[in-house]
């Protein structure tokens, strides 16, 4: 009898847990249109497992909005951020995006971090003819008509990384590891195609759930297979357990370096720099980028959010894309999202990490690929850097080149690449 009640009550509690949904109210907007203010949506996770990274992106978006308001606003109007919480759940993202577009009628939305949340909101932006500025590095293989992507795509983060690793770390055999969802799987697919083209090979590819913490068996497997390098797309809190287990099992970055497309300064701080030191990451921006513009920006961020705050790639994009939006709105002269997207194309901005440009064809960003090696203090020493920004090619893994573009202003050319045929 005891056991039965035990199990019953467990079932009840599970049901209760699933009911909990958090929502934070929107900031009060004043007059909707034509007045002295302009509503913009800010949609990141402020609760749930991904708040760790997304909170910093939320903060830097609001920081940019404040700066723009202090300098007179956009088209003479003050920006009013309508803040929504995506709660680390793609379904909540979709619901909030719909709310922002339909009932708040925002001019644009700045938001989203994971590929899963973007996939959930994109159809809504297309349907309601809205505009999304998406600040995160992505897996490519997307050609959205109602969004501007300001983070890196594979030819700015993966191509250069694998090439550099093979040449400079003398790596031939790669172990691919990632979290189990669309971004890591697609990134691994891209990496495999590059490896094949360049005469490398992969010895295994493994995917673990997002919150996985028992890395013992997987790291033992790495030890047995002895790859030259690990290509990692591990996301979120399980990054911590991964790097810690790696060192605890006696593996060193000299023997098997972890090359990550996800572990930035903010994850490094959480893992503890002593566990990450020596490993590599590839991003177009590192806090250590040595330019006066970046030094000023980092100082401003620390001033505002505390001396222990670190800056990272997605946070930097969250910041400068708001300034691109300002230019776009002023160029378009009115607040129609479709006209503003068109106006965004080709715009340039002197971002903390160097010059960036919105590509006139596919609406992704021109960024400068960089590779950093983690140091004992958790900062990255830049070991490889391109001379200038590189044109984004979201379909590079499928044969896209600068001369032969798949994604243009008229959408994806399905005669060159058909996503339906690529399902595997």
């Amino acid at each position: 009898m005891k056991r039965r009640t035990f199990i019953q009550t467990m079932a009840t509690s599970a049901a209760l847990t699933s009911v909990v949904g958090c929502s934070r109210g929107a900031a009060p907007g004043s007059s909707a249109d034509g007045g002295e203010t302009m509503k913009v949506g800010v949609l990141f996770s402020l609760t749930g497992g991904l708040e760790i990274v997304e909170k910093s992106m939320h903060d830097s978006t609001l920081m940019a909005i404040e700066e723009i308001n202090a300098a007179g606003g956009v088209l003479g109007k003050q920006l009013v951020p309508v803040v929504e919480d995506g709660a680390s759940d793609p379904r909540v993202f979709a619901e909030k995006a719909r709310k922002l577009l339909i009932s708040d009628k925002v001019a644009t939305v700045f938001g989203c971090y994971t590929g899963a949340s973007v996939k959930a909101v994109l159809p809504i932006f297309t349907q309601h003819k809205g505009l999304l500025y998406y600040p995160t590095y992505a897996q490519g293989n997307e050609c959205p008509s109602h969004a501007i992507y300001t983070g890196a795509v594979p030819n700015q983060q993966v191509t250069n990384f694998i090439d550099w690793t093979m040449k400079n770390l003398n790596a031939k055999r790669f172990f691919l590891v990632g979290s189990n969802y669309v971004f890591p799987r697609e990134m691994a697919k891209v990496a495999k195609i590059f490896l094949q083209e360049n005469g490398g090979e992969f010895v295994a590819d493994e995917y673990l759930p997002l919150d996985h913490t028992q890395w013992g068996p997987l790291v033992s497997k790495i030890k047995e297979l002895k790859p030259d390098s690990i290509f990692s797309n591990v996301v979120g809190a399980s990054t911590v357990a991964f790097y810690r287990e790696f060192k605890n099992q006696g593996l060193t970055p000299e023997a098997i370096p972890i090359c990550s497309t996800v572990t930035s300064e903010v994850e490094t701080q959480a893992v503890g720099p002593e566990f990450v030191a020596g490993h590599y990451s590839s991003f177009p921006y590192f806090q250590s980028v040595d330019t006066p513009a970046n030094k000023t920006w980092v100082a401003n961020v620390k001033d505002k959010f505390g001396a222990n705050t670190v800056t990272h790639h997605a946070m930097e994009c969250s910041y400068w894309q708001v300034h691109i939006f300002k230019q776009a709105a002023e160029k378009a002269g009115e607040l129609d999202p479709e006209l503003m997207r068109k106006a965004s194309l080709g715009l340039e901005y002197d971002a903390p990490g160097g010059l960036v440009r919105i590509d006139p064809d596919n609406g992704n960003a021109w960024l400068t690929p960089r590779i950093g090696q983690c140091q004992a203090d958790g900062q990255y020493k830049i070991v490889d850097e391109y001379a200038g920004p590189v044109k984004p090619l979201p379909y590079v893994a499928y044969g896209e080149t600068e001369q032969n573009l798949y994604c243009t202003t008229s959408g994806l050319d399905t005669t060159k690449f058909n996503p339906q045929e690529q399902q595997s």
Partner: protein
Amino acid sequence: MLGSLLSGLSIGSVLLLVALGLMVIYGTMGVINMAHGDLVMLGAYVTVFSQRLLHVPFLLCLPLAFVFTGSLGWLIERLIVRRLYSRLLDTLLATWGIGIILQQVIRLTFGPELQNVSVPVFLTGETRVGGIGMPSYRLAVFLVSVALLLGVVAILHRTDLGMRLRAVSQNPQISACHGIDVNQVRAWTFALGAGLAGAAGVMVSGFNAVRPTMGSSYVVDSFIVVVVGGVSSLAGTVASAALLGGVNSVMAWLTNDVLAKAVLLLLAIAVIRFFPKGLFSAQAR
């Protein structure tokens, strides 16, 4: 293969570590403590706090966290759980609420971001035991969980409190007739269970991300261990932790971690189907 058995042992010892406190409270008091995972989380934050502000060495955080979460457990029993005995659903709801409050308090004081705990150098890297390399930290987790287990056994079977506790868990009315202060015994039991959760939190903080929501996965894991092992049996908890850890590790080595987790849950279902009272159940009377 040998390596995967060893890592199974270490997974098992983590399971045992987090399930021990839950088992003490449920097995002897019949209260399902939904705040258990959050007490583990609190233990981890005690480590973060004492390292950062008091500069206490890592291993000394163990007694600190034990005392801190234990006192908190004592308070929880005194103020809330005491009023709800023999109302299973209500205790469940109340302790779950306490868990949410703890999570929010931590979120408001430490912020939502991941915290990191530094581990002493001698606990990183490998230790050679008889020619086989074992991660030192895993070895430490194993030793701590064995020590805590022995501690619990000693308390239950060698002390006056343990004797009273066993008497109360068998029949509170008759124990009261014999002059045992039932309320006091229950308060101390709850404190012991909560303290064990806190100590588990310290060890967990060394290899896992410390954040306000970290408790939820541990509460699920430890419930599975306790259910499979038999809810009121210490030996069962040990056996099921070892079994589940071993199966998880060997399956992960043979196939992959996702499949291993599925096999684990299937195994738990099978055990409950054929041994509804768990692997080791107390004799029915």
